[in-house]
């Protein structure tokens, strides 16, 4: 069994544990390569099906191509697609691009708050109608108790300390100092009412593993990751005001794998293009403790 087989097997095992144990389970899909691999792994785990909803938090500042790609794949894979948004902050122009918030607080408003309230069911959830290909307000407002997330340990320091099954309290807070033990593939699947569990099937994957797997499985991926014709490509996808493309001529998955293995990005961290990580020393840790993914 090679490395990718072993990673796949472990992720599939985690997904099946989650599906058995959580009645109200969702998967977060950011449209990026990691959560798209996660989506693919769900199809592996459930033999071509995805038996739970996918949630996307639309900050309205996503690169438009991402939204197009999301809906295309959602229709093709027959996904139960749910979209959440902080419509209030957008209406009141409380965002970084509007110049009223700094980056960290913008992430908090458009991503963390939107996510918390979408998961809790306290803000409207929009659900894709496969007949009309339009989004409609979902009647289900039950809180989701299991949330599958595509975080990887190699991305950033606080993520390297995560569990596969990681509890969050009522306020989505993460108690990093007191995490549950996790041994022999026995995970924390018991939780008190009002709390929820984040599930991280991709914890052991590196950025290179992700691309090698996309290559092996031929997973459809948005072409924003490839050279946009100007010698630049996105290495990591987010909101366009805060995510910078990198200089690269990689035109396809093979080129990217090569670039990561022996090329210029061999030793450069993936999130180096994300501005919010650099604010406040432990920017992402602060965000993540409060519920950011």
């Amino acid at each position: 069994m090679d490395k990718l087989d072993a990673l796949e097997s472990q992720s599939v095992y985690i997904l099946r544990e989650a599906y058995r144990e959580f009645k109200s389970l969702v998967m977060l899909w950011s449209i990026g390569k990691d959560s798209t691999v996660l989506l693919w792994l769900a199809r592996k785990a459930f033999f071509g099906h995805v038996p739970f909803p996918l949630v996307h938090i639309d900050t309205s500042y996503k690169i438009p191509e991402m939204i197009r790609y999301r809906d295309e794949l959602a229709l093709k894979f027959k996904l139960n697609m749910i979209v959440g948004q902080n419509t209030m902050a957008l209406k009141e122009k409380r965002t970084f691009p509007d110049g009223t918030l700094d980056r960290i607080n913008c992430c908090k408003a458009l991503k963390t708050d939107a996510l918390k309230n979408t998961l809790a069911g306290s803000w409207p959830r929009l659900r894709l109608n496969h007949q009309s290909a339009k989004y409609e307000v979902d009647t289900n407002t039950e809180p989701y108790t299991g949330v599958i997330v595509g975080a990887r340990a190699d991305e950033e320091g606080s993520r390297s300390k995560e569990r596969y099954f990681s509890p969050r309290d009522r306020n989505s807070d993460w108690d990093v100092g007191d995490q549950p033990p996790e041994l022999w593939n026995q995970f924390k699947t018991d939780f008190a009412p009002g709390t929820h569990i984040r599930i991280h099937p991709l914890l052991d994957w590196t950025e290179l593993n992700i691309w090698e797997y996309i290559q092996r499985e031929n997973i459809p991926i948005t072409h924003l990751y490839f050279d946009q014709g100007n010698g630049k490509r996105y290495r990591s996808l987010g909101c366009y005001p805060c995510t910078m493309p990198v200089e690269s001529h990689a035109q396809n998955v093979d080129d990217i794998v090569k670039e990561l293995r022996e090329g210029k990005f061999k030793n450069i961290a993936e999130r180096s293009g994300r501005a919010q990580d650099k604010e406040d020393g432990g920017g992402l840790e602060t965000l993540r403790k409060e519920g950011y993914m």
Partner: protein
Amino acid sequence: MASQRQQMNVVIVGHVDHGKSTLVGRLLADTGSLPEGKLEAVKAQCKRNAKPFEYAFLLDALKDEQAQGITIDTARSFFKSSKRDYIIIDAPGHIEFLKNMISGAARAEAALLVIDAHEGIKENSKRHGYMMRFLGIKNIAVCVNKMDLVNYDRAVFERIQADYVKFLKEIDLAPQAFIPIAAFCGDNMTGPSSRMPWYQGGSVLDVLDGFQKAAPLDQLPFRMPVQDIYKFTESGDDRRIVAGRVETGSVRTGDEVIFLPSGKKNRIKTVEYFNGPPRSGARAQESIGFTYDTEIYIRPGEVLCRYSQKLPHVSNKFRANVFWMGKQPLIKTKTYKLKIATQQVPVIVADIIHVLNAAELASSHKPHVDRHEVGEIIFETLKPIAFDTVNEIAPTGRFVLVDNYEIAGGGIILAPVFDSDSSLNQHIKKRDYGWERSQITPPLRAQKYGHKSALIIIAGKIDTGNQRIAKAMEEALFNLGKNVYFLGISNRLNLAASDSKDKTLGRYDALVQLGELAHLMTDAGLILITSITDIDQYDLGMLKKLNNPNRTLVIYVGQEERLALENIDLLLPENERSEAAVKKIVDLLVKAVVLDPEYEI
């Protein structure tokens, strides 16, 4: 191809402040495994905050960790040698964070145990050594760190080595190497150190590369704990797939298999795997699915085995060593939730044989196991479970205990125990011993009431009409002037399961309550009717036992899937009309001499 490179998980353990994170940080830096600019960035940050630079800061990423200068939780980092890829798990050494250390170490195939040359062997140097043995990690090297603080003195190194070897011998553990290092200065990390010419052995990197991967698990008997059974009919997929991960061994289509503990046999029809070439078999470590020749009813938690091979033990009692991490101590006679492979069942601590302090190796006798202690314990489950001993097949020989939502203990099974004196029997014996009997005997009551007492269980799947029939039955007997009472326990069971802290334990508690209640009411001469869903022969056995010596009658509505026919007194078709059902049940009651034959409806 790079993805074919071997990967190994290595955990770094040892007492707090002995330099584990420094060792990892240095290893990452010296093998060029850090992202570009990371080292400089951390150095610059230290300078800004007027703090001396530490390699540990490369790993101790949490703010609290940097502020306190300790590792709180395990971090994973990645590095490559020329031989293979490593995932390094840096575990905390502080006793407070022992459960984090265990979480990290349980994933490891190899361990580096770090001891401070200046401070010498400390409590957690020993405790962590013991835990490596407990977790079954075979590849172990001891790094005697901070040799710079003892002037690279060979005598200091050799004294620590001698003392620690003596300790390890007591727990039957033999490390592959002892390496004198100064992680901060880089001595013996990736190459020989000129400051310790007296040391002829390999560097940390050499020793890591010298570790052997464990033999593949394919050669062991086949075990696949069933994770789930899928049938995605609404998506137009009619396959009924039993899914799980093959823990050990291998299997091929056509092989005769058996599910344990249920003992149901079948034959593998197809191997199911999404987006890959068709397969005719599956091997250890693969997450896979199977379809079968005949459709049978099984539940997640069963262990799929090959009939021709050595089968796991099926028993409701076993002896195990448990490492306890709970905030509350583990207590004799208390019920916990046991999770072993994919089985989840209530388990009772039947006996605590002895308790061990893992650092001092001192054993004691007491009725509880405190946090961070190891207990040798006899466990008893209500229903038999399938398991192996940890020495036979580790993945099905290890378990965790859940207490109050939390995984509170890890255990390894030493041996099955076979005896008949279950805790339920003991409970009943105790109950009956303390029961003061009145002058009115059961025959006197029966004479007065015109019927004997009985517990009537009307079982069946949800929506088969069992509850409707139970109520009709109550009404019919009531109208005949019988002392009858209906108790809709199914709802209570579900409620107990969802309300209670734990659905497995909640259901169990509710069943025991029902049994006790039934015993009380039948002792008072009543006919108690209850409808119940999703019951199996063990639940039923328990109810009957608790209701003894009074009569229990079982009526099953619908197609029987989970109960053996010999457990059922009357089988009714699904959605049987109430009048017809009542007639048949009255006949049964007459036959069972609960009612006199002259009573007609």
